[in-house]
């Protein structure tokens, strides 16, 4: 790995080239508009919040996609380094999510901790699962993951199955927000562990060097 004076420049160059800026900006706009709509009419438009969370999962997953994986995976930069650089996009999305909730907190439920954690964990799940798939050799698992995650999360937020026992998307003040906090913490920890395990296994010296690419489905 290049540790000379050009290290920061190389990192920035990779960040600029690897991040889907237009997609990030577009999804940020939709998410911001969604949170603003929920804050304006919380009682009626609450499912939009879950839809925005689905979009967070999807966009974080797409951030991992490496179109030129066959070339890049053979380069000296390890996957963990590229994953760390690529996390800038989802981190920016989480920051934006938190800022939007903080700015519009007055009409929202009085549990900003849960609402912000939901966004952070949603990004973590998308990024973590896509990273694990990248480490297993897939080039662009994010698009496939996003295509399934966005409608499933939005659908779950609309239908809210098992909400009394598993309050994933609490809406009303009388719902169990503490349990929601616990559920999202567990989900976030699991996503982080999945990604960390995949990166650690990828970083280990291999008995048979070389990357085996698997077809994206």
């Amino acid at each position, binding site marked *: 790995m290049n540790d000379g004076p050009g290290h920061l420049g190389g990192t920035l160059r990779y960040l600029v080239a690897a991040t889907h800026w237009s997609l990030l900006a577009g999804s940020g706009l939709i998410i911001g508009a969604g949170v603003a709509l929920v804050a304006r009419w919380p009682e009626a438009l609450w499912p939009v919040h879950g839809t925005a969370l689905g979009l967070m999962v999807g966009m974080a997953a797409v951030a991992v996609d490496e179109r030129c994986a066959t070339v890049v995976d053979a380069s000296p930069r390890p996957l963990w380094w590229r994953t760390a650089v690529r996390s800038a996009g989802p981190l920016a999305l989480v920051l934006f999510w938190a800022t939007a909730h903080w700015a519009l907190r007055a009409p929202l439920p009085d549990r900003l901790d849960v609402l912000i954690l939901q966004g952070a964990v949603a990004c973590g799940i998308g990024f973590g699962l896509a990273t694990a798939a990248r480490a297993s050799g897939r080039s662009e698992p994010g698009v496939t993951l996003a295509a399934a995650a966005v409608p499933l999360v939005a659908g779950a937020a609309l239908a809210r*199955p098992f909400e009394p026992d598993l309050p994933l998307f609490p809406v009303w003040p009388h719902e169990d927000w503490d349990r929601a906090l616990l559920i999202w913490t567990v989900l976030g920890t699991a996503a982080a562990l999945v990604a960390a395990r995949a990166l650690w296994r990828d970083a280990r010296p291999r008995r048979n060097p070389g990357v085996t690419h698997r077809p994206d489905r």
Partner: protein
Amino acid sequence: MTAAESPAIVTVAEPARPPWMDLARIEVRRYAGRPAFLVGLVLTYATLLPYLDGDEPTDELSMIAPAALLGMVGLSVSAHRVWASDRCAEAAGPTPVGQASRTVGHLAACVVPFLAGLGFVLLTVLRAQSVPTVRGGYAEMMSDGWVAAVWFALGAVSCLGGPILGVVVARKTKRAAAPIVTTVGLVLAVIVFQGLFEPLRRVRVVLPWTYWGGPFGIDGDPQRSVVLSGSPGWWLTYLIVLCAIGAVVAVRTDVEARSARGRTALIVLAGLAVVTVVLAMFTGTAETLVSPVPGDGPAWGG
């Protein structure tokens, strides 16, 4: 007849099948095996688990589960199936099966989520025969036929319409983000037109999914049940016409499949859609009906 002659006789006797039928069988199997569909299916039917408690009233608002978890998810599943089969067709080179036949195969596969949604509706209707819906709710206020039309439209037809829309989207664009953007746009539109906003209640039936009743509240009782205006019977017809329009539009994206007959069919269907949606708006229940039973839930903010 000798054993050597019999295969020739069987081949002659067998009627020639159009290629889309074989494709349909393959696509039905593939759709049923998609993980997103299976997750949605499990989550949908898991919402029926509370019915194991015999005292739990049948949920008149439960049709959101199949619509969201089978219909909306079906949009993405269908679109990605279409693209996957297109990639196979491109890799195979010139084949005797054209794009239109493949499209018909994908449209036939939409029967999988439809049947799953229909099963959910039938189970709910059967449950409602033995354990009634919540007291004072819209299902108690209206006739069995009215409720059945609403549930069939919301719980089954939506599971057909979402996947058909996915086929249309995939045939119109190759952009991977298109199903996601369509899903998000659809959710936003449906939430706005679900009937909570009074000025939009008449025109809400233009959307492919909307509520026909529920605890929308009145002044002084924010959880009071109401029945919204319109005719669910005509709306159901409108939704079926929309599905037919989607199917024709999807098939006609193949230039070779375009014909004057198809164009006429599209014009007739568009006319039918306009007529049925106007009838859905202005016939049936004339104004919002308010339940005589007070609501019992809390308002926003406690």
